[in-house]
């Protein structure tokens, strides 16, 4: 059954009297526990799609349904892992997670249960050792792990990730991708992730949603990645399904929908 559905979502921005249509007719149905990637050239409106699902932006046309209910404001059941981690710099790692847990689960869990839940989520991303540190004292990869812990700790129905590993070096990124796969396998979250990394998309996703270039961007093609889980990055390198999926995405991005600005 469809868990999350985007129905004919479109959005336009008006600036200085000129209206630009950024998205048109974005239609997507996502099942519970599915891991979906959104890929496309920069400026195509991937982040806009995610922000509409998060409720941070309002669609001009169409709408988003989560378990049959319309989404029209931000909320913890659609937790966001922001591209630049967005940890509050005056709080320690633990306090950043605690802020979310204490606010979102105040009525569901007792104080002691919440303390335990905070520690559990820090342990999930291997950040227990740095719980007392402030964001500026830890590396970029660690910050992103805390961002993931904060989002997961809200017990979201859908986890929204906006290029979570975009700003990290390749080795750290691979490490975090492995951790994310492990967490996803264990918790079976529904995830929408934005990326512009083809390998990342193929490795992590059940389905890859490829977006056309803007303005008036929409979904160009949806590719299923029928690889069994757990996936091992080393074994996949020469797997025909993997290489085929990778080729499909590359073909879409660089042959059929090459970015004109880059070609120029």
């Amino acid at each position, binding site marked *: 059954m469809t868990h999350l559905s985007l129905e004919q979502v479109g959005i336009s921005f008006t600036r200085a009297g000129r209206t630009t249509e950024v998205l048109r007719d974005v239609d997507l149905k996502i099942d519970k526990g599915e891991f979906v990637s959104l890929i496309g050239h920069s400026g195509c409106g991937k982040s806009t799609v995610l922000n509409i699902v*998060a*409720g*941070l932006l309002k669609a001009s046309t169409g709408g988003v349904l989560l378990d049959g209910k319309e989404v029209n*404001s*931000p*909320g*913890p059941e*659609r*937790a*966001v892992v*922001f591209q*630049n981690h*967005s940890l*509050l*710099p*005056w709080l320690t790692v633990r306090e950043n997670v605690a*802020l*979310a847990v204490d*606010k*979102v689960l105040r009525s569901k869990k007792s104080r002691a249960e919440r303390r335990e839940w905070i520690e559990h989520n820090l342990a999930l991303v291997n950040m227990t050792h740095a719980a007392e540190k*402030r964001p500026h004292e830890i590396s970029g990869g660690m910050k992103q792990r805390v961002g993931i812990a904060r989002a997961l700790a*809200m017990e979201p129905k859908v986890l929204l990730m906006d290029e979570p590993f975009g700003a990290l070096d390749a080795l750290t990124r691979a490490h975090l991708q492995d951790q994310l796969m492990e967490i996803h396998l264990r918790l079976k979250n529904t995830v929408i992730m934005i990326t512009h990394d083809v390998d990342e998309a193929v490795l992590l996703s059940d389905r890859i949603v490829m977006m056309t270039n803007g303005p008036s961007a929409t979904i160009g093609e949806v590719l299923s990645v029928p690889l069994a889980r757990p996936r091992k990055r080393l074994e996949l390198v020469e797997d025909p399904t993997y290489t085929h999926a990778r080729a499909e995405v590359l073909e879409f991005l660089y042959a059929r929908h090459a970015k004109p600005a880059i070609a120029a």
Partner: protein
Amino acid sequence: MALGTTLGRVAAVKPEGARRPLVTRAALKGLALRIVPPLVVLAVFLLLWEVLCQRPGAGLPPPSRVVTEAWDIIAHPFYDNGGTDKGLFWHISASLQRVALGFTLAVIAGVMLGTLVGQSEWAMRGLDPIFQVLRTIPPLAWLPLSLAAFRDGQPSAIFVIFITSIWPIIINTAVGIRNIPQDYRNVAAVLRLNAFEFFAKVMLPSAAPYIFTGLRIGVGLSWLAIVAAEMLIGGVGIGFFIWDAWNSSHISEIIVALVYVGVIGFVLDRLVAGLGHLVTRGTATA
């Protein structure tokens, strides 16, 4: 005291090896570099003053005469003969109490108004031009008006402090609020923080470095204003003390009082800066 213990450690460690004393010496050198130049300049200044004011017909007393003439008030800051005949400590403490009260009120009102102006486009358009005009009014110009309104010296002086220090607090708080990154607002939105939680947990800490810049400017202006205001309203206070000394031609006492005013203004500034450093955990410029 601290110097003594450091020297003591140097002596104790010396037989073990030459490495640690070297570090201590570097630290001592750093300390000396900070303290020696102002002391030298101060000594030269005092010497120059002494020489210039020793000549017959000089308008101001030389430092040596300041000390001997004003020795009474330097040595006995705590005496209290009733009325306004009190030691410097009592005058300064009365002034500080007025500043504390007026400044506290300014902090509360200033941060709230600044938040309003920073958060609401409409409030900014409406209030900002008015603030920009009002803030240029010299502190003492408010005094007659507040005397007319309150009909008493004490609340008038406090009002002058309030109205003097509130503008930099409002303006800096508003800038701080306007500069809260959209990311933090998004986090708050996803968590569904209510208005109060957002104010206490995101706005205040995020804007704190700006707010403390405003507080530092504000406390400095308060101290500038209180001395002038007290000259006019009378009663116990350092401003009145200076005016009274002038009327009795006790120039040496004025000079001693000015030294106190300067040192206390400096301490107030450092105090607010230090508090800001503590609260913002080092992100504010101290």
